[in-house]
């Protein structure tokens, strides 16, 4: 999967301001709504929260992957966000999260969404990459890490 086609400067954000899981998710959805065309914030939020209800998407090592499926989108939408202060995300390892990867995909097309998450999680599996992302000062820096980390 070519991350270059999916990730742009607009889909990466440093310095998220939310301090709760709900706030972080809403903040990320606002970015997707701003980047997309005619996307209903409520529908996206509902899709993501429904998935969170089944099982929290807080993974290990301060990474969370909130995602949802809804047919108001026709293709994959992603946003990557980093927060300066750790936020409790009900994670698997009980540690608070700082790196958030959100995807919204159509109900029938789970392939690209899983492929994207798999690609990203392969990068985030390296401590070195995580450290660099947390230290990054701008969206451009993070984008660079993801696009270069691939090679």
């Amino acid at each position, binding site marked *: 999967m070519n991350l270059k086609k999916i990730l742009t400067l607009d889909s990466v954000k440093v310095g998220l301001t939310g301090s709760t899981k709900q706030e972080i998710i809403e903040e990320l959805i606002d970015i997707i709504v701003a980047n997309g065309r005619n996307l209903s914030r409520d529908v996206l939020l509902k899709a993501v929260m429904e998935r969170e209800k*089944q099982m929290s998407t807080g993974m290990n090592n301060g990474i969370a992957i909130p995602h949802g499926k809804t047919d108001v989108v026709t293709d994959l939408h992603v946003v990557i966000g980093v927060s300066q202060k750790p936020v409790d995300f009900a994670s698997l390892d009980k540690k608070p999260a700082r790196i958030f990867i959100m995807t919204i995909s159509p109900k*029938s097309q*789970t392939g690209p969404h*899983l*492929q994207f998450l798999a690609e990203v999680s*392969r990068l985030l599996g390296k401590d070195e990459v995580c450290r660099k992302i947390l230290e990054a000062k701008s969206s451009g820096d993070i984008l660079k890490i993801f696009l270069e980390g691939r090679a």
Partner: protein
Amino acid sequence: MEHGDSLIHLMTKLVFQLSIIIIAAKLFGFLVSRYLKQSSVLGEIVAGMIIGPFALGSIPLAMFGGESLFIIPHGAAIPIMPELEGFATVASIVLLFLSGLETDLKTFLRFAGVGALVGLGGVIVSFFLGAGSAILFIPGVSHWMEPKALFMGIIATATSVGITARILSEQRELSSPEGVTILSAAVLDDVIGIILLAIVVGLTKTGSSGGVEWSLVGSIALKAVGFWLGSTVIGIVLAPRLTKRLKRLKDLDALAMISLGLALLLAGFSEKAGLAMIIGAYVMGLALSSTDVAEDIRHRLEGLYNFIVPIFFCVMGMMVDFAVMRKVLGYGLLYAALGVAGKLVGAGGFSLFGGFNLRGAYRIGAGMLPRGEVTLIMASLGLSTGVLDSGLFGVAVIAMFISSLVAPPVLLRAFKGGSGYKGEMAEGGDSELKSIGFEMPSEALAGFVLTRLLEAFREADFFPRRLDHQNPVYTLQKDAVHITLYLDGANITCNVPPAQESFVRLLLTEEILSLKELFRSVEKVAESDSVERNIIGNLFESNEQND
């Protein structure tokens, strides 16, 4: 009226024969797979031998006016009634249609390099060993272009990797360099075997005898390859459009049956074109193999397969004449040994040129050993066309038995120890597979979850393909990525290359979560009894008011 009477008599007999065949085949198949841990096919063949016209089936019975159940028709090449032979013929078409349908053309093309080398090596060496043994040991055969020698040659080439695929998936070696090579080599092996058969049948029908007329051989070969290639290419181009139209029926059962109908049609045409029927059936399967409904067609033909294929193997067993078999036992054992040697030396040996070391070569050779239905179909074709006598048919049966018995233990032992590949396999072929497994509370639930997982992988653009008719073993394929998924009791196991591990873990998690959602809704039905109350409610209701 007399004709009607004799027809009824004949049909009654056919019904009795089928009944005995089906019951015996299923019983012996079950016993052999349950207690001897061998393929049930062997049991079905043995059942045929026991109930057939050369054993129990020859006992005169009063109910048939002193005739035996299985009489040998006068002057026929095959010792069974033509009516029964009809069933076996349809079965061979079903078998080859499914065999074509299960062909993995994409994998084959992806690993065509080494796979082609190995498949070709196995075919060439086996063919010449088989044909050579005919020249040396069959009286009256002096040249390898004679029909008998040709038939013994092509019978030696057939490989059936069903058994190998099952063992390799159990050993988690299916995606190893050796495993992938065996699977793609087997595709080529089938294709070359079928083309060779087409040529040989063509030659036999024109009555070539000894003297080699190369122009005749050339023209027949050209026609055979032309028919095969032409119909395959046309089929592959037309199949997706055809299935797209047929999908509009919104009835996958109808689609599966129409596909089978087309397989029979092409089988008939290929016979008319001077080739064998099974070639057309195989080509039709091959054409449909790359369409997205291939697995659905296969699944829907399973019932037919379970009915007719044991009949086929049982009838094959019935054709074994013990009196003649005793005379050819020596040659049969030699032929079987040459068959093993041909695959080890040919397939294994040629893999040495493809980057494998001796250990890898041995594994690949061992993986190509098992023989199955194609061997028997080829042999019965030889018998029915009068090229082979019942002795040589017996030889083919011996070879099939021995290879099927020898292959599993040899294969298991071969895959112990270190790597058999010299270099690093390209991406997607890592031999270090990650295994992800989980257990369900019951086998029934595990089966249900498995079908859901297959559907989820399909949605993620993977092509699931069932490898074994008897066991739920699947490969899921997307470009060069191979994942195996199989069910063992209530356990679901997924073997993935490391690069795909996180993808598969995510997919499995999401699917389990959505299943849980489904189960919760089932729970709602389970908690309240309103549904069954509504259904059963009025059972003992007084109906006096209604009167």
